[in-house]
Each structure stands twice: as C-alpha cells, then as structure tokens.
C-alpha cells in the first residue's frame, strides 16, 4: 500500500480545507481500505470524516428524518424511529454485508462505495472505470453479476449498495458540502449512468463532502425490501427490489419501485410505477408493469437471468404487499 498522511477533521470546513489533490475522505474504511490494499485506490492523504458532528439521526416533526453521514449502518438499521416509520430502510441495511461491517460502515461511505466488478478490483486488468480508456473486459468476460439496465459499451458495472435502493424508493435527498457552499441533491441525481465516462460513479466533484441524507417523510404506503443472492446471507445482490404499493378499493393508487444489482445506480422503476397508477390490483397489472420497465433491458451473454429475476421479484414483492403477506 502506498504511504499516506492522515488527518482527522473536526468540522466540515476542516475536511474541505484538508482535501487537496490526491486526498480521499475516510469513513469506516470498509471499502476504501480494501481498495487501497488492492492498489485500486492510491491516495496520498486520508481525511477521516467519522468524527465530524454529522453523527445523529434526527426525526423531525414533519415526519421526515435527517441522517448524519457519519452514522454507522448498524445504528441506522436499529434506530427505533427508522424501524417504525421507514422499515424498508432498515430491511435494506440489514440485508447488506455483515454485523461487523455494518458497525464500521458509515452512511456517506455506503452511498459512495465502489462497484464490486472483479476487473475493477484487479489492477492487472484493463477497466475503463479504474483506468479510463483501457477498455471493458467484463463485456466479453465475466459479467454474470453485472448490469442489464442503463449500461454502456464503456462499462456494465453495478452499484452494490442495498441501502441506496431503499433510499431511492424513499425519495431521499443527499446533503453535500461543496467548496462553493451547501447543496441538496436528489438521490436519483447523485448517481449516473456510465455513458462514455464510467470513471465517475456519481455527479459529485472531487472534494465534495456528503454531510447527511434527508428523507422527506414515510413512503405513505407499505413497502418491503427483498434481495436475491448466491447464498442465504453475507453476499451482494444479484437483484434486489424495494417495492411499495398503495391499493384503494381494488385499484392501485400509487406505487414506488427501486431495483438493486441491475444498473450503475439504484434503478428507480418509474415506468413500472406509471403503469401501476390507476391499474387494477391484480397480478396481471404487476406483470405488465415489470415487463414495461424491463423492456429496455440489454442483457449480456451471461446475465439475461437478471431480467426475468427482476420481473419476478417486482411481482412477488408487490403481490405480497397487496395480499397482506409481507
């Protein structure tokens, strides 16, 4: 591992000031330290942002919640107010990683964790995300767990976060401290499709500091997170779904759906949601909605199973909610 200096920020301004050139912010380090050990990340300086005062979960009178970026994943999952009012968020967090990792991982770091694409993690291989212009070996190579939606000829990586999928369903906004002031970014605008610049996972600029995440209020409908993986626990998603549905008198009044494991970003399935609004609460409607969303899927040689898996998961999660079987 390359040598680096270490500084601990006491305020957001400290962190921004300390962030020069080859600096990375250090959250729990569960992704960054791993990538440094692999040689994928080679910062000359780490600025530890875990002791910033953004470490509280603040439930607001308007029903919203403000979650500090330094809050640990396990504390967020265990927060009584979150479990009561945003259970889909607890479920997604608890579906991720292990008890040990969740104790270390921060909310800010979870949002900005890098893809688990094996070529990205192997510095002996080309990878447009790690070494722009070097190519994407995954497209012809090992891609059974990579993207089927929104990918590009430059990169077919997926975003690995479970938490971000639930946050997408909850219309979360990310608070960012930039050199030129504060900003609030909708979660869906934080992430991006790879296009011809997969080196950027998000729309943030280097040095931008995430200070927190705000959820405007409960989804207003029952919602559930379900994750399919290659073993029962402690594995990344093949496909996951955060789904919510509001049925009134046999009709679907509203629905929210976000998919994980299928794209470079948590994938908010707005086309499916549009199909569902006003439709009868039947399995046929769910099937049609899922098919409409996945029409755009462009599976590779070995990941076509994700298209049917995602469709089946949408139908299963929403169907269970309609049937009161969650």
């Amino acid at each position, binding site marked *: *591992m390359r*040598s*680096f*200096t*270490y*500084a*601990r920020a006491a305020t957001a301004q400290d962190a921004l000031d300390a962030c020069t050139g080859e600096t990375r912010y*250090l959250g*729990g*380090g*569960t992704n960054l*330290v*791993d990538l440094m*050990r692999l040689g994928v990340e080679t910062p*000359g*300086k*780490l600025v*530890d942002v*875990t002791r910033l005062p953004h470490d509280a979960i603040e439930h607001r009178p308007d029903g919203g919640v403000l979650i500090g970026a330094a809050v640990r994943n*396990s504390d967020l*999952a*265990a927060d*009584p107010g979150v*479990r*009561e009012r945003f*259970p889909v968020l*607890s*479920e997604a967090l*608890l*579906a991720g*990683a*292990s*008890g*040990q*990792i969740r*104790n*270390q991982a921060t909310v800010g770091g979870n949002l900005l964790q890098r893809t688990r694409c094996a070529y990205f993690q192997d510095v002996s291989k080309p990878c447009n995300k790690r070494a722009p212009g070097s190519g994407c070996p995954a497209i012809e190579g090992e891609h059974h767990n990579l993207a089927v939606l929104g990918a590009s000829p430059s990169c077919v990586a997926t975003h690995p976060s479970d938490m971000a999928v639930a946050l997408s369903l909850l219309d979360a906004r990310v608070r960012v401290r930039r050199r030129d002031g504060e900003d609030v970014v909708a979660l869906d605008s934080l992430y991006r499709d790879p296009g011809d610049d997969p080196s950027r996972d998000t729309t943030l600029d280097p040095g931008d500091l995430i200070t927190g995440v705000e959820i405007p209020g409960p989804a207003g409908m029952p919602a559930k997170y379900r994750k399919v993986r290659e073993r*029962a*626990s*402690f594995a990344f998603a093949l496909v996951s779904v955060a789904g919510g549905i509001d049925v009134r008198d046999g009709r679907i009044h509203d629905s929210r759906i976000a998919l994980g494991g299928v794209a470079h970003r948590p994938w908010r399935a707005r086309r499916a949601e549009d199909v569902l609004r006003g439709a009868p609460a039947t399995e046929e409607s769910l099937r049609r909605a899922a098919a409409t969303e996945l029409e755009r899927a462009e599976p590779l040689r070995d990941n076509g199973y994700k298209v049917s898996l995602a469709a089946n998961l949408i139908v299963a999660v929403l169907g269970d909610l309609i049937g009161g079987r969650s």
Partner: protein
Amino acid sequence: MESADSGAPVTRADITLTVNGDLLRIDVDTRSSLLDVLREGLGLTGAKKGCDHGQCGACTVLADGRRVNACLLLAVAADGLEVTTVEGLADGDVLSPVQEAFLGRDAYQCGYCTPGQLCSATAVLDEAARGWPSAVTADVADAPDLDDAEIRERMSGNLCRCGAYVNIVAAVREAASPEPVQEVVR
C-alpha cells in the same frame, strides 16, 4: 497526524488504545490495520488474518463493545478506542459464558475461526439484548428472540472452513439462553 510545519509528509502517528483493559500508547504506520498492530505489534495473535478483506470474520474484535473487522480498521483511525480481543474475553481463568458454551458444545474443529466467532457471538448477545433486528426478523420493528435462524443470520459474517456451524449455532443459543439447554458434558 499531519505535520503543521511542513517537512516530509508524516506517515506515522502516535495513537492511544485501551487493549483488554491496558492503556497503551503506540506509534503506528498510518497504513497499519488494527489487526496488524494487535498481532505484530502487541503479540496478541488470537485475532486471525483469514482474508484481510472483511470477508471471513476471523479478525473480529470488539471496539468500544462493538464487533468490527480489525483487518479493515486502520489503527490510526482506531485512536482512542477500547479494544477487546479474544484474549480479553475471560476474567482471569474464568471463561466468559460464550467461551464456556463453545467449549461445552465443541463448537470448533481446527480453531482458526474461533477467536473471531467468540468475539462476534459476544457482540451478537449484546445486540440482541439491545433489541436489534436482523435480516431474518419478520418485522424489523420487533426485538426478536435469538432462535436458530436469527443466530445463523447474525453470525453470517464469520466463516468456518471446517464447517463447525451446527455446533457454533448450538453454542450461541446456549450462551443466549439464561438457563443451560441441557447438561454440558466436557
């Protein structure tokens, strides 16, 4: 930390750790993991380096009472924490309830994963006592009892290459229940 008055970049740091009750001041390379400091620096070789990537749990220790993977925690970032390793679980010669249960249930074969399993299980009991749910809890608003499904899920960050899982689950269940499940035979 960083040198205020320039010169060469400072890539070492003086940190304070309380390890198994002893307050220590240690000079570390900023690159050192807590695991390497414990094992190489302090000779506490209980915590194991199975993967060095957070994937196996062999390096699990308690930091301020919470289980963490010491391989992914930079020592410099652990400055000020109270660390308990497997060497610190017992009270002198008196084993902790989790250690007793592992012994009684024969919850290991080669023993390589055991220090991590013991620290992790100790924290699992504490998390359950605080009412934390898990991924298999039907309603996350509930504080579930530690049945076998809950134990398996909560211990899933600790792999055992020998496959001693059945006895590990039994040991954690025994440590979790206030009265012994059955007569313990040594």
